[in-house]
């Protein structure tokens, strides 16, 4: 895979070319291309494929439960259809899935290959480690799996899953406990299991039965876990009038190509934006899960919700740190919304104003930012948890001084509550 002049191209190996020739005419593949479940792909010259460019790349450790489940179901659905026509997926990785807003898209066309008679699904273990166990962890234990997925690109191993998951919940005895036992038992043996299975008559119906059971299992898993901020807008000290003024202010920021909504919560302001595409970021997994569910129901293809803690955002990962990129390296926004966020970062996470403004300036985009002063109820709540002298310099003047270092303030508006101010600012050149 490589990118050239904004195009996403894939060079095929000899075997890859043979697989592509067969795949191109497969009914399931054409159907999935047409309905957008597989990324639009065409052969531009022999051995070179060109793919549709999706607006923003994201990774499984940035997806809430609902997105990981949706990606898992897409993968299983395509695998089931592929098996019926003599194809299989080489792997079972969520990194094969990207998003068109709330719609999952399978992007790794090279993962499909012709099924070799007598061989099991090579991606089953990976599917467990990167999809099934993380989903089970949240469904059965109420533990969000994103830190695990970010911690290891290989996901959760069967032995780890066995230690973490309750034994007597649906699917655990087979996919976790037995999986770990068989793996431990066969780790030291030099036996050619692949040939043994082939000789014993392993057939695709076995993979299909497993895939169908996995689909049922995954469909039944539902998110579990507490949220700090779900329902925040209801509990927040905004009047409806202030929320509407905010919405008008955001609209007046004008059109943009790629907008980032930082601290997006229920996505109200992401929806108000006049942007071709919005990356809606929030640090609370349950809040983003709810937002995703709403966007999916609306059929949104222009807002991508992601779980990102801005005080500890997605780092570079994988081999030499180049396989998975930092958030900022995956497409620069031309408009950034930063509403009801400054006080959480400045007080809750101790990020100095100058640091915060410096980072926002580095994005090089127009900025809509909200500041809540010391009299604001939410700020008072955050300050109450801190020692009195720690945030003595938290105030509007100090904030504006820092903002002016990186931006020119084009417009500002005080909200009716009297404790919050909105700014539209352009980056200083």
């Amino acid at each position: 895979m490589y990118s050239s002049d904004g195009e996403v191209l894939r060079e095929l190996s000899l075997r890859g070319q043979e697989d592509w020739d067969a795949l191109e005419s497969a009914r399931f593949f054409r159907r999935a291309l047409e309905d957008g479940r597989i990324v639009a792909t065409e052969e531009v010259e022999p051995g070179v494929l060109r793919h549709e460019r999706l607006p923003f790349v994201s990774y499984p450790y940035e997806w809430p439960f609902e997105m990981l489940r949706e990606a898992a179901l897409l993968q299983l659905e395509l695998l089931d259809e592929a098996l019926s026509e003599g194809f299989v997926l080489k792997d079972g990785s969520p990194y094969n899935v990207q998003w068109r807003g709330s719609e999952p898209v399978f992007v790794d066309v090279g993962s499909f290959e012709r099924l070799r008679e007598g061989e099991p699904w090579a991606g089953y273990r990976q599917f467990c480690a990167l999809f099934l166990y993380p989903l089970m962890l949240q469904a059965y234990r109420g533990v969000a799996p994103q830190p695990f997925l970010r911690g290891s690109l290989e996901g959760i191993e069967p032995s780890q899953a066995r230690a973490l998951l309750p034994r007597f919940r649906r699917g655990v005895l087979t996919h976790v406990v037995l999986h770990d036992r068989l793996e431990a038992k066969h780790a030291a043996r030099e036996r050619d299991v692949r040939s043994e299975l082939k000789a014993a008559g392993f057939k695709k119906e076995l993979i299909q039965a497993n895939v169908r059971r996995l689909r049922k299992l995954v469909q039944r898993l539902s998110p579990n876990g507490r949220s700090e901020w779900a329902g925040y807008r209801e509990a927040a000290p905004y009047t409806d009038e202030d929320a509407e003024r905010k919405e008008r202010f955001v609209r007046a920021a004008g059109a943009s190509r790629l907008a980032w909504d930082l601290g997006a919560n229920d996505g109200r302001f992401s929806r108000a934006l006049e942007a071709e595409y919005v990356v809606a970021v929030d640090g609370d997994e349950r809040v983003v899960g709810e937002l995703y569910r709403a966007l999916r129901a609306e059929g949104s293809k222009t807002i991508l919700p992601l779980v990102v803690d801005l005080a500890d955002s997605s780092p570079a990962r994988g081999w030499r740190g180049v396989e998975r990129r930092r958030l900022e390296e995956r497409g620069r926004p031309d408009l950034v919304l930063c509403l009801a966020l400054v006080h959480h970062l400045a007080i809750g996470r101790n990020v100095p104003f100058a640091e915060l403004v410096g980072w926002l300036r580095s994005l090089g985009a127009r900025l809509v930012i909200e500041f809540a002063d010391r009299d604001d109820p939410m700020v008072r709540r955050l300050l109450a948890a801190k020692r009195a002298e720690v945030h003595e310099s938290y105030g509007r003047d100090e904030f504006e001084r820092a903002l002016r270092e990186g931006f020119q303030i084009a417009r500002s508006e005080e909200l009716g509550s009297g404790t919050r101010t909105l700014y539209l600012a352009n980056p200083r050149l």
Partner: protein
Amino acid sequence: MVPLNYLDAGSGSMLLQIVLGGVAAIGVTAKLTWRRFLRTLRIRRDDDET
């Protein structure tokens, strides 16, 4: 040369897929067990293909 797969499936994971194959797996399991049994009795060699 056979090109490398993306993944090494893992022997334990491959065997588990028989268990997860449901009804379709009965015949395969019986055959696999029988072949292993014969091998234990040294009636069949490891590299016997058929």
